[in-house]
């Protein structure tokens, strides 16, 4: 396998097609993400945004095209999925924490079980991550005892415990009430500023404008338009982009 060097795109998606039955979700999507870049994907519901980022860590498979992450071909049946997933974390809309485990255990489990790291070392790191997402004192709480915003920050810490190179965020604030949206967004902003490569599917246009290096607008399975946020938001060229932005801004 060709080794990847940091000067190349860390994620390289080219001409990806994906269908659920006869319904074409992705119809030839291509995009590159450089290391340390923050990319936001926006677009109407059903345009394939979530499907696209789920394909990046192999939760969904693709019918044709290629997705390369750090030189690994995601769709290769011989791919070592653990090598991929160790480096690509994903945070979901519905948090999906393990409800029978405490906050600390939620964060510790994957490194201990999947990566077989020593518990004591993992625990130190987990406590630091919980502090980083501003949840000190909640280590022994169960997910069911936390608010949505708190649960989502635990989910972020749980991903970070694997020390990934890339973080994917799939509409992570869509299930939150307006007041807690900001606590999650500021956590993501910290990560972005530390140089984490991030791909966000989001409906938070203001946030996208503020943190993204690049915006992609998808509609009906294709990328309609993309560009840096100041250009994209100030001067959208495609009528579909203009129509969408007119509705949400």
């Amino acid at each position, binding site marked *: 396998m060709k080794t990847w060097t940091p000067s190349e795109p860390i994620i390289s998606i080219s001409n990806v097609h994906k269908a659920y039955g006869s319904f074409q979700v992705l119809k030839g999507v291509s995009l590159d993400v450089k290391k340390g870049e923050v990319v936001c994907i926006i677009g109407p519901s059903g345009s394939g945004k979530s499907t696209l980022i789920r394909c990046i860590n192999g*939760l969904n498979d693709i019918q044709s095209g290629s997705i390369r992450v750090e030189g690994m071909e995601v769709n290769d049946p011989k791919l070592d999925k653990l090598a991929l997933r160790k480096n690509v974390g994903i945070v979901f809309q519905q948090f*999906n*924490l393990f*409800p*029978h485990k405490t906050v600390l255990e939620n964060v510790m489990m*994957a490194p201990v079980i999947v990566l077989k790291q020593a518990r004591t070392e993992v625990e130190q790191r987990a406590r630091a991550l919980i502090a980083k997402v501003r949840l000190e004192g909640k280590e022994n709480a*169960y997910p069911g005892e936390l608010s949505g915003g708190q649960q989502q920050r635990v989910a972020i810490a*749980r991903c970070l415990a694997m020390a990934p190179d890339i973080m994917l965020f799939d509409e992570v604030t869509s299930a939150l009430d307006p007041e807690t949206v900001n606590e999650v967004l500021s956590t993501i902003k910290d990560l972005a500023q530390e140089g984490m490569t991030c791909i966000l599917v989001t409906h938070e246009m203001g946030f996208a404008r503020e943190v993204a290096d690049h915006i992609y607008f998808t509609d009906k399975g294709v990328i309609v338009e993309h560009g840096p946020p100041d250009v994209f938001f100030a001067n959208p060229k495609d009528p579909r982009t203009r129509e969408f932005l007119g509705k949400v801004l």
Partner: protein
Amino acid sequence: MATIADFFHWLAAKRGYNFSIFYDRFDGTQFLYGIWTTIHLSFFCVLLSVLFGAIGVWLQRSSFEPLRWLVGAYVGFFRNTPPLVQLYFFYFAVDPVLSSALGVKGGLLSNYGWALLVLSLYAGAFNTEIFRSGIEAVPKSTCEAAEALGYTPLQIFRHVTFPLAFRVSFPAMTSNLVNLIKTTTTAYAISVAETLYVANRIWSDQFNVFEMMNVVWVVYLVLVGLFLAFMTRWEKALRVPGFGRSK
């Protein structure tokens, strides 16, 4: 001890309530033996039925279709027929046919062995369905989160699906196991000397049906009560704040 025996002797002679098991050594020993048989038959049936349920649900989730079909047939066979009929069927029809075909003299299993196997299979069929409902109640998205973190399917099952499914299945499983303990009385029909069988032998000798019926009633009330106390404590220990009923 002598005073207890004296009291029941007096009760039988003067008041006409004949609790022979408390003063007649033979009846007493027999009855204790019956209770002990009920206890170990129940104990092994409970363990085996949970094992059969676990195997059943595991095979049911196999990608190999004939295995799923086999589990469907097993559940249908044991869920759709009365346990008493099952005991008769295996003891009087299956055992003679199989043992003569295999050339085994004196039957394949003892009556106790058949009771243990058949009743475990019977409750195991229900456990299969109960565990299935538990597994299906675990959100796919929760397992997907584990998958995205690099867990293998076995690790997902062990650390996510099983602990959650077990908690969901627990109340229904408890009810099914209580039912199983009570159903061990049907082993009476193939002469397993459990509580009811022994009680029958005693009341046939002593003509004290009324007294023995009350005793049998209390025995099951206490046995099932103890089992339920144990299961309730276990369920409490498994309880997770904010998951299901929180208090």
